[in-house]
């Protein structure tokens, strides 16, 4: 690949040739490409003013351009927004000359916009060509060329480009630092509106100079690679799918219990619940919520939450459900990234969303304001059009345990397929009654035709679910099924005392979200003696992928990693190279690689993260099928069981080849005195050494105190090395708290731990 990195004339290190207006700069690029005799169309990577120039080149000379990667730029001021105040200020008479030419304020300010996200060297480099007043003349002229009214000499040219970009046929990829006070998310949306096929990759942690703050090269490589193959449209019209609200509608006339909320001591019959759904659907529709609109649901787990979600689905609005387990900041970042048109929630949540500017410009709908009368004819009589199975239904968020929370898009068809997979997998029938101690699962209850119960617990901390609260929730509906996260189950086991009669009647307990310790399952088994204990494996993007029962897990015994059971019927699992070396070629049984899956209930993809999407959703060129790379590494055994060995980014690359952490951790945790273990790599990739860090006593509650790391005593170190032989272990340390995620208290941040250990073992101060 040939890379051409020109300076604009009169800018950077190029010659100072006098003022150049927008049209001249567009012509400069065309001249350069021709003068260099580039014999094929070029990709233009451009930022800020360069983006406007690149768009000008693309519309005037489409034959020269293969594609555009644009970052924090714009071609027009978005509707309902004034031009960027910083540029406007810089262009104001008086301020203009002082800021841009007499002083280096503008030049340095550009670097300051990105703050500490730029290195000192980068900041210095940006300002270096503009050290003298004369050299800054060009900066002054460039700012003066930004048109703020129609009489400006460049205004007509730029307006004409803005009108014509919609006709662009080449791929357009947007890489956007959303912390940019100048070209913020509104500008990205403006470009998406103008160029419907433009794909956005939004970087929540980067600003105006996203191309410097993060590495732009992977985006460009991915964009070019992606454009080589055309994504197939295998979304053949799905018909005959029973919609998510089907069961709610079917039971709309029943006066038996449908939903129970133990925390609020509230319940609703099937008829009441269907009415409530209809009421919200009507109210939302009246408040101009249209099909396809995104709506942030900030309702805490309650009957209202379920009713609002089903109302949205019924009218075709897209629910954006961010759970409070992400923390307030994470929740805000999630809502902001989804760019919702409406926010619905109780008064307090609305006030928070408004104060914290989670959704500027969105309509705020308080729950209380929507309590109108139920429409005549109820849910069945709603005259509103129904969404198609291919229409978007929901954006849900990953836990963010391994990076910032990512939005994942689901269509109605995909949610329905997920519902049907769960029904088949767990033999869910008409008599089942379900308590969910995890809100996103509770939402599936009514769709599965189950009486649904919500337990009294702090949703921000699953480990607060007590045995008594769970038993109480079960007794209210006579539950046959329970879903709880591993951390919640662990707390149930810990707090179990006295008679828990309702738990004894449960036939099925499910737990997912993080690895479930086998001892926790056994203890749950003693509380629920008639229950089957099942642990589905999957992730926000695809669930379920596999499933295993406690007896099967005990029968399988030990192996390399953690056995998550056989793939669920209808879900294909392939183990492929994690290093992307041989595409999607299937590895032999027993060989470790990245777990890659394909199933009808796979989500549509990531939201506003095309680069992530491109990496995680490779296409099998032979079949045209899209697969999902889970980011987990593991293998399939001879019996077809899937074993998980860790995360791709946690694989330890030693001189003797890659080593996966989970198999080592499983062995380490079998050593006496070890409650929990982490295996991390230190040093450069390819030369890494394995370090084991263990907790010697189990801590289920995070305690806010200084965490210390100390070398393990020689007896413990020797015992662990003996157990892990022949793997060489450079060091064994103990800690009082491994870094784990807040939501599950189980996913170890091995990357952070590796950095800590590398520092501690480098000989620098503790």
């Amino acid at each position, binding site marked *: 690949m040939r890379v051409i990195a020109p300076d604009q004339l009169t800018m950077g290190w190029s010659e100072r040739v006098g003022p150049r207006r927008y049209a001249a700069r567009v012509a400069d690029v065309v001249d350069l490409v021709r003068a260099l005799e580039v014999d094929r169309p070029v990709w233009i990577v451009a930022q800020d003013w360069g983006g406007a120039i690149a768009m000008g080149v693309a519309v005037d000379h489409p034959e020269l351009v293969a594609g555009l990667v644009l970052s924090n730029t714009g071609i027009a001021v978005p509707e309902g927004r004034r031009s960027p105040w910083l540029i406007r200020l810089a262009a104001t008479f008086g301020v203009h000359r002082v800021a841009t030419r007499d002083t280096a304020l503008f030049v340095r300010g550009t670097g300051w916009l990105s703050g500490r996200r730029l290195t000192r060297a980068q900041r210095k480099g940006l300002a270096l060509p503009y050290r003298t007043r004369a050299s800054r003349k060009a900066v002054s002229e460039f700012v003066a060329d930004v048109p703020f009214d129609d009489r400006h000499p460049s205004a007509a040219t730029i307006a004409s480009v803005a009108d014509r970009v919609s006709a662009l046929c080449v791929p357009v990829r947007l890489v956007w630092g959303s912390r940019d006070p100048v070209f913020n998310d509104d500008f990205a949306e403006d470009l998406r509106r103008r160029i419907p096929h433009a794909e956005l990759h939004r970087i929540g942690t980067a600003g105006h100079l996203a191309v410097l703050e993060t590495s732009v090269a992977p985006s460009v490589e991915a964009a070019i690679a992606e454009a080589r193959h055309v994504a197939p449209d295998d979304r053949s019209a799905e018909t005959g799918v029973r919609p998510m609200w089907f069961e709610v509608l079917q039971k709309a006339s029943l006066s038996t219990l449908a939903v129970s909320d133990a925390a609020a001591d509230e319940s609703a019959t099937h008829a009441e619940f269907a009415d409530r759904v209809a009421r919200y659907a009507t109210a939302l529709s009246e408040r101009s919520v249209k099909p396809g609109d995104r709506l942030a649901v900030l309702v805490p787990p309650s009957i209202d939450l379920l009713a609002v979600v089903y109302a949205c689905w019924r009218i075709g609005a897209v629910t954006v459900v961010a759970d409070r387990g992400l923390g307030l900041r994470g929740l805000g970042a999630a809502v902001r990234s989804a760019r919702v048109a409406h926010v619905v929630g109780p008064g307090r949540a609305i006030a928070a969303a408004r104060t914290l500017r989670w959704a500027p410009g969105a309509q705020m709908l308080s729950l209380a304001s929507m309590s109108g009368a139920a429409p005549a004819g109820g849910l069945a009589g709603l005259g509103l059009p129904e969404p198609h199975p291919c229409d978007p239904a929901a954006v849900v968020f990953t836990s963010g345990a391994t990076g910032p929370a990512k939005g994942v898009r689901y269509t109605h068809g995909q949610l329905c397929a997920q519902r049907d997979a769960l029904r088949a997998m767990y033999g869910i029938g008409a008599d089942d009654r379900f308590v969910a101690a995890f809100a996103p699962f509770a939402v599936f209850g009514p769709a599965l035709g189950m009486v649904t119960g919500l337990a009294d617990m702090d949703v921000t901390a699953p480990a607060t679910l007590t045995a008594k609260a769970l038993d109480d929730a079960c007794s209210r509906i006579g539950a046959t099924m329970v879903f709880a996260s591993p951390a919640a189950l662990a707390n149930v086991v810990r707090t179990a005392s006295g008679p828990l009669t309702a738990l004894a009647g449960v036939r099925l307990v499910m737990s997912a979200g993080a690895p479930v310790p086998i001892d926790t399952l056994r203890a749950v088994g003693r509380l629920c003696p008639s229950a089957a204990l099942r642990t589905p494996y999957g992730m926000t993007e695809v669930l379920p992928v596999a499933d295993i029962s406690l007896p099967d897990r005990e029968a399988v015994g030990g192996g390399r990693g953690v056995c998550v059971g056989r793939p669920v019927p209808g879900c294909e699992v392939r183990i492929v190279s994690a290093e992307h070396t041989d595409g999607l070629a299937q590895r032999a049984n027993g060989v470790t690689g990245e777990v890659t899956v394909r199933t009808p209930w796979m989500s549509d993809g990531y939201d506003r993260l095309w680069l992530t999407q491109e990496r995680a959703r490779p296409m099998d060129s032979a079949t045209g099928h899209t697969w999902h790379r889970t980011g987990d590494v593991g293998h399939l055994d001879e019996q077809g069981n899937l074993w998980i060995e860790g995360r791709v980014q946690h694989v330890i690359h030693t*001189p003797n080849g890659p080593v996966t952490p989970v198999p080592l951790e499983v062995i380490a945790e079998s050593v006496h005195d070890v409650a929990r273990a982490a295996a991390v790599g*230190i*040093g*450069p990739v*390819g*030369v*890494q*050494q394995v370090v084991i860090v263990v907790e010697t006593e189990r801590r289920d509650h995070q305690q806010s105190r200084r965490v210390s790391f100390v*070398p393990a005593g*020689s007896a413990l*170190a020797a015992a662990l*090395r003996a157990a892990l032989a022949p793997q*060489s272990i*450079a*060091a064994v340390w103990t800690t009082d708290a491994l870094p784990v995620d807040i939501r599950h208290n189980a996913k170890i941040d091995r990357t952070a731990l590796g950095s800590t250990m*590398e520092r*501690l*073992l*480098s*000989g*620098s*101060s*503790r």
Partner: protein
Amino acid sequence: MRVLVTGAGSALMGGVAAQLARRGDDIVCLQRRAVTLPDDVRFSQVNGDLRDLDAVLAATEGCDAIIHGAARVGVVGGWADFHSVNVEGTGHVLHAAHRHGVGRFVYVSTPSVAHTGESLVGTGAEPASTGRKGAFYAESKAVAEQMVLGENSEQMAVVAIRPHLVWGPGDTQLVGRIVERAKAGRLVMVGSGSALVDTTYLDNAVSAHVAALDALRVGAPCAGRAYVVANGEPRTVHELVEGICRAAGVPFEPRHVPARVARGIGSVVERVWPRFREGEPPITRFVAEQLGTAHWFDPRPARDDLGWEPTVSLDEGFARLAAWFAA
């Protein structure tokens, strides 16, 4: 094959001579004082000083290869002392090699030739650097290594092997000093003792040099290059010293000295000690840095180019050391 081994008085070079002799090579040893090797080893020896060109020429006559391991080590002495043995003496060996048409030259170097005082984490054999102040041993070895690698040609293939911290039965440099200090209750741990350091068990260091000799020929990938060799099992300084003390049956009761203090004292000692005292000083800046910062290396170049991998693990090494002390 007739091979000249210089410096066979050390545990490492004596081991190299013995292994080559046992497999049938014709061995000549050159060192200042007569050495004794195990009874089953057949070899001849020339006793002489590297600074004596005639002695070197005499020993080299008829040799096909040279493994040059003789050097002045330690911290006692001035630059002239180190230079005359390690630089000029190596020059004599190179001269003799040319004179007698020796085709292969293995230079026994040290990782400290590229030592910058920073921690080394998984790095390869960086080029030797010169110009350091003090640290005469490392400086003289660096000058000599550059000289030797510069002699790689179509007539003679050369390679430099840098074994990192060799230890084992009979080793006086590392094991000897640690045991002596532990016995005297003067064991000092620089910093927290948590710097990860790779070491080389004696037998592995020996086999690495034999492997280098076998892999070396004109045009071979290793010709003209330097390789760090080590066990590939870095451990914390604390664990290493504890392991050696346990094997020797001496108490492990170190006093901890902050890294910065140790470096400071070491700097002063390095300058002052040679003028007033004889014998080894308690600490030098170089040793303080060695023990206070991480030092471990990329094992792949040696594995790929020399076809060498360690065969005795660290734990096996400790067991053998304990058996040797017990005997």
